């Protein structure tokens, strides 16, 4: 049975890499006693899938992973297979296994997981994924980011953002250790807006960006920031504090 967990990667753990997050979550699941199903084979791995990974430095309010539970070991419903006739039991969809889990049981697993996560992480919701549902990766259509910047001139910020949005194509060069690649950021930026914070003590501003995911492909807000310099905004994208506020599912 597959469970989808919505969780938070908070401000204090924003500097963890995606691999770190995956490791932390696996350990938290074990501490919380989740009966996670394992892959077959020589070195069994827990069946967990992560989606739309966040880079080092970016926090996320609504992140997701899917985890397959071992139906034999689910507490309270261990080994019970059937059509979910019992009260409060939810059939997990028209799955081949037809497993059921007690709603209360699911909630208490969620609580246990949240309690066993390191500070900065928490569970924001759990749901049962119907067996035949397509992978989450396919369903993610966009991410909404909030970019917190300091010490910028307001007028040039607003005009740079507007100028960016007026363009049809904004090329950005991605530098990787072995190659450089040009990507057109503009089609990915569905929307971008500036919210000005209090002027004191330092100029502070927030840019919200809605960025498209296209069959798993997307771009980073930092790349967009880097390109704003072409439109008159001087900013070091590494100093921006980037949070993903929301992930849009179809």
């Amino acid at each position, binding site marked *: 049975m597959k469970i989808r967990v919505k969780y938070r990667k908070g401000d204090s753990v924003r*500097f963890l890499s995606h*691999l*770190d997050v995956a490791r932390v979550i696996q350990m938290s699941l074990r501490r919380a006693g989740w009966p996670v199903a394992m892959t077959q084979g*020589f070195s069994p791995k827990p069946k967990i899938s992560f989606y739309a990974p966040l880079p*080092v*430095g970016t926090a996320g309010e609504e992140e997701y992973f899917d985890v397959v539970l071992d139906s034999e070991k689910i507490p309270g419903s261990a080994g019970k297979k059937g059509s979910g006739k019992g009260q409060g039991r939810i059939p997990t969809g028209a799955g081949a296994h037809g497993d059921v889990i007690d709603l209360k049981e699911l909630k208490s697993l969620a609580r246990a997981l949240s309690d066993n996560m390191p500070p900065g992480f928490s569970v924001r919701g759990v749901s049962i994924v119907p067996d035949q549902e397509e992978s989450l990766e396919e369903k993610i259509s966009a991410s909404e980011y909030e970019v917190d910047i300091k010490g910028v001139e307001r007028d040039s910020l607003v005009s740079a953002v507007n100028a960016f949005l007026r363009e049809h194509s904004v090329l950005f060069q991605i530098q990787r250790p072995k190659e450089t690649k040009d990507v057109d950021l503009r089609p990915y930026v569905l929307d971008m807006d500036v919210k000005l914070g209090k002027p004191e003590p330092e100029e502070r501003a927030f840019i919200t960006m809605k960025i498209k995911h296209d069959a798993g492909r997307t771009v980073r807000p930092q790349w967009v920031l880097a390109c704003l310099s072409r439109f008159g905004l001087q900013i070091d994208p590494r100093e921006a*504090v980037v949070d993903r506020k929301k992930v849009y599912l179809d």
Partner: protein
Amino acid sequence: MLGVRYNIIEWDDLRRELGKVQKPARYTGGEINARVKDHSSVDVHFALAFPDVYEVGMSHLGSQILYHVLNSRQDVACERVYAPWIDMEKLLREKGWPLFSIESRLPLYVFDIVGFSLQYELTYTNVLAMLDLGRIPLRSRDRTREHPLVIAGGPCAMAAEPLSDFIDAFALGDGEELVLEIVDVYRQWKRSGRPRKDLLIMLSLLEGVYVPSFYSVDYGTDGTIEAIRPKEIPVDPGMYAHIRDTLSKGPNPRKCASLNEDKPGIYLPPERVRKRVVRSLEDAPFPLDPVIPLMEPIHDRAMVEIFRGCTQGCRFCQAGVLYRPVREREPETVERLAREILARSGYDEVSLVSLSSADYSRIKEVVSSLVKDNPCAARVSLPSLRVDSFSVGLAEALGTSTHTGLTLAPEAGSQRMRDVINKKVTEGDILEASLHAFRAGFSHIKFYFMIGLPGETDEDVAAIADLAVRVRQAGRDLGIRPTVVVSVSGFVPKPHTPFQWEACMVPEEIARRQAILARALRGPGLEFRYHDAEMTRLEAIFSRGDRRLGASLELAFKRGRRFDAWPDRFDPVAWEEIFRETGVDAAFYAHRERGKDEVLPWDHLDSGVRKSYLWKERERALERMLTRDCRAGLCTGCGICPDFGVRVRLAGER
């Protein structure tokens, strides 16, 4: 309560800068089981300082034990600090930020005590860098009452004379009891309002504390040491009375610190400082809630120490001397600790650690019980296996993944050399262990060897390659295509070992011998790896060095030398220049054989193993005579048990 004024770096400022450095999670803490205490409610702030990067430091069991021991005390807040990587040091300097602890981001200089863990000589430049970044005067003599007490422990502390200008006091031997005694003395001193020198005197009354500034070193015209003597320390009447009280009531009656009856007001520190020994591991504290790093550490698993000490008696091995005698945990305790730590931590592997885990007298029962039943269906692993069929059988019983391969350390290629180093392993053992491994499904075997051992000839070197080829052939005869990896390091004669008098081979000669192996180890199924011979030399200089190397270390720090143990950071040319400018002859320290009666820079630090025993072992080495393991009950006379009033403790004989 912190007496010094300080600012804490704001999180918002830090998070806007950390995007500029590699692996920023090294500096942000927030781990499960990290302890953040209310600073107004504790008396002593202790910084546990590890002079290497976070992911290395977090893999060190000793630091986890001390963190646990210190934070178990209500009046102590212990926080961790690691060596910042090059990019982070640059950032700290650009921003004008001091080095800070990862729990509360307290600047290093506000701590009461800064305790370094010295695991490896090539971290010494990092120690200096951390002091400087932490705004603590580098040299002990420049520190005042307002500065932290800077101490250092770990195996290197038993011979860390090159650091003696920079460290106020060294803690020798097992730390879990001593560190709390140091904290108690510190509190007592702080309340007394006495000068800093008195703190050092009070500390030197503890068994296991070595205050280097209380000793003078005389050098002969040939540059060797003539004598290392305790200085006569003038003390005021209050201090005099305190010393007299402490000496009279013990608790360390074997200490030989004294008051000079002829000269009132003079304190004489002990001529030799003894390392501390925890009598029984069974009663020693062990963390059930170790700090669990959020970023992957080098060793990503739970650890349970099954015994301390090793009496196999390998003559090159420093740990085998420094951690004597053998003290085992009871099997029930090992199992209970392992199960509890696994359940609480969520690790999927537990490692039963020691210097030679197959030697644990109850290893079979513990392994089979843990493999059968543990809360996370975790793997059980044993580091440092012996080279024999029994050990491979254990690895098999553990279900060690045959993909990762098996690592064995015969240390020398020829029987002659193995006899010299007292590695009681025959070629038959090695082949049998390999065959066992191949049959169990391992196709990848890694062997560790040393070259440059005393009396080694080209034939002995070639024997390493012959052995690897024979092992490969044994695998092929079984119908598999094995990979045999030969990893070779240059031998460094270490202080407190029977080989402490030996010369370390010059890099050119080590390189020539590496070349012999590189030629012989060509072909399918053979892989050859080796260490930088220049790095071996630097390690030899600093592990065998005396106080005169302090100037070289300081210059090296100023020239930006950091992380010298990291191959991509190590710069032998820069070091050569540093030694030239500070007038140090590398050959004098690294490549010179010492005479029997020469005073060695660590002779005044007592490991418990007598120098006469070490010399006897050296002579036996030259005659290829083996010395048995005393673990089975027959004492070989190293001296620690009678001299220190301790004993070997095997499981079941409490």
